[in-house]
């Protein structure tokens, strides 16, 4: 077995374990359909097998998101629109959490995500890529097509808008989360 094949397999395993869930969530945001989102992510993973050149080790995540985005956009084009969808209402609480804490967490998460959904599409997307997928500005720029400075501007504007929306809720405190 060649070293290249071993590397591909290792990369695929890593992609499945570390990134597939977030990718499905991201694709679902673009497509509005869980089944379609999973199909897209499956396509992305399969495309990784013969990818030429193979993404560099540090570039795997941004490669996956870029291919995922392009694949999702291909599908969206059939409807000629791209719309970052509103967040689903249910949360995934920690199994060890008490029911009361789970309910409280669910309310908070729903509230924050609802506010996130009120931001413009491009701000929502870059905020997700930054704080959910934990990508750098440069990686987000490669995925979305914005310049690095534009990504910084969008994130900066998005965070400040979100802060303004969260202020009246009392969830914000100095020094961290209430």
């Amino acid at each position, binding site marked *: 077995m060649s070293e290249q094949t071993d590397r591909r*397999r290792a990369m*695929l395993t890593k992609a*499945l374990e570390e990134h*597939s*869930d*977030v990718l*499905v*969530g991201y694709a*679902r945001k673009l497509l509005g359909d869980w089944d379609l989102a*999973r199909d897209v992510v*499956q396509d992305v993973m*399969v495309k990784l*097998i*013969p990818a030429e050149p193979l993404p560099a080790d540090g*570039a795997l995540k941004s*490669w996956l998101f*870029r291919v995922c*985005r392009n694949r999702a*956009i*291909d599908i969206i084009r059939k409807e000629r*629109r*791209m719309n970052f969808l509103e*967040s689903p209402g*249910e*949360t*995934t*609480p920690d199994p060890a959490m008490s029911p009361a804490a789970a309910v409280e967490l669910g309310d*908070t*998460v729903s509230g*924050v*995500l609802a506010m*996130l959904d009120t931001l413009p599409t*491009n701000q929502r997307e870059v905020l*997700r890529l*930054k*704080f*959910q997928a934990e990508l*750098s*500005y440069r990686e987000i720029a490669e995925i979305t*097509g*914005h*310049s*690095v400075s*534009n990504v*910084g*501007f969008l*994130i*900066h504007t998005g*965070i*400040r808008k*979100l*802060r303004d929306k*969260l*202020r009246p809720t009392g*969830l*914000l405190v*100095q020094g*961290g*989360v*209430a």
Partner: protein
Amino acid sequence: MTYDPSNTPRDELLELKLPALIAGELSEAEAAGLRMAINADEALAAEYEELLSATSLLGMALKHEPTQPLTNTQIEAILKAAETGEERLDALESAARSRTFHFPCGDGGRKWQWWLSVAASIVVCIVAAQFLMMLGSATRPKPIPGPVATTPDGEQTPEGYHGTPAPLEGDTIWIDPGMMPDTTEPHLASAPREGYVPLEIKLPSRRSDGTPCLISRNEPNMEERKPRDYRRPQFYVPKGTINVALTTTVTASEEPMIGELSQIVDGIAESDDENILDLDSGPVWVTLDLGKSCELFAIVMWHRDRGEVEIAMRDVIVETADDKDFTINHYILFNNDHDGSLNKGHPKGTDQQYIETHEGKLVDALAVKARYVRFWSNGNTVDDCTYWSEIKIFGKDIPTSTTPGLNPLAMIVSRALRAHLAS
């Protein structure tokens, strides 16, 4: 280099640096300097804590957002595809292709019968089509042959000017070379002639950044990929032609998300961050008011060269008119909205989508006379935004003496005359 907050305006600190610090995008020196500034300034510290709190909440919410992981079947399928590497993948793709097209009979059936029926059907269709064409040509006046032109890309078929003239509302005319007066030679000139000179276009630098990403081969209405060393053939324009769009007034269907409209006509066609205008998703337009009616020979547009990432704008339409409502002497010079998806009242286009390069896209303006030029677009192959770097319109002031050129009345009269002579 040590960060010195005293040298940086307070507004900039507040507006730009705090989110970047929270996002971990500052260098160590910058981050350390900014933390010192935060410690020394209570208001700044409060702002920082609040933004940090908001991002913490956002991160927590996104972490707990429900998701639906890949199914076991999907994971198994992926791992199976990887089992035997590329050969296995080829087999899978082959199997997938075969699923999209099913023979009416299996391996045990008589395939030759099916193929025979297909061949017979094709022959019948061809014979029927020829018969209908003969019938049509006998009962219809013969079409006016338009001059064959060579496009700047070296193609023998004009890019969008052929086809049935399809008037829009008002006085719109779809320019067709067949409608041009006999005395007017096609302006899509790839060969020198008297009074014409090569069009000098200052090209921006070619970008080579970005991770290579090609446009899908399945992309509809897409031109062939040109070789890397491709150079556009020389284009000839009358002597004295200048960029009449330089520093003209630009309006748009919406406020740009990033950049200023004036950047489109500042003469700089570079695709770097500072020179790109970003309009939001969906159908958008920009309109250039040339200030007075000019005779136009060539339009060159640069949307955005993204280096190794191939990108093509969608639904690009270039139209001209004498009034800002585009109702008087309205012409469509270029239209690659092949499926009518722009949905703004234009006919479907016959031009092809093109890959953005540092050379820009040259559109033959056919010596049309116009004051306003509008450029439509509808996202691109990478995202749904419209980017603009530069538009150059090469033309001249309209001379006082009347010279043959395109004007609606002349074209209509000429066309009627030709039809009469042909009959």
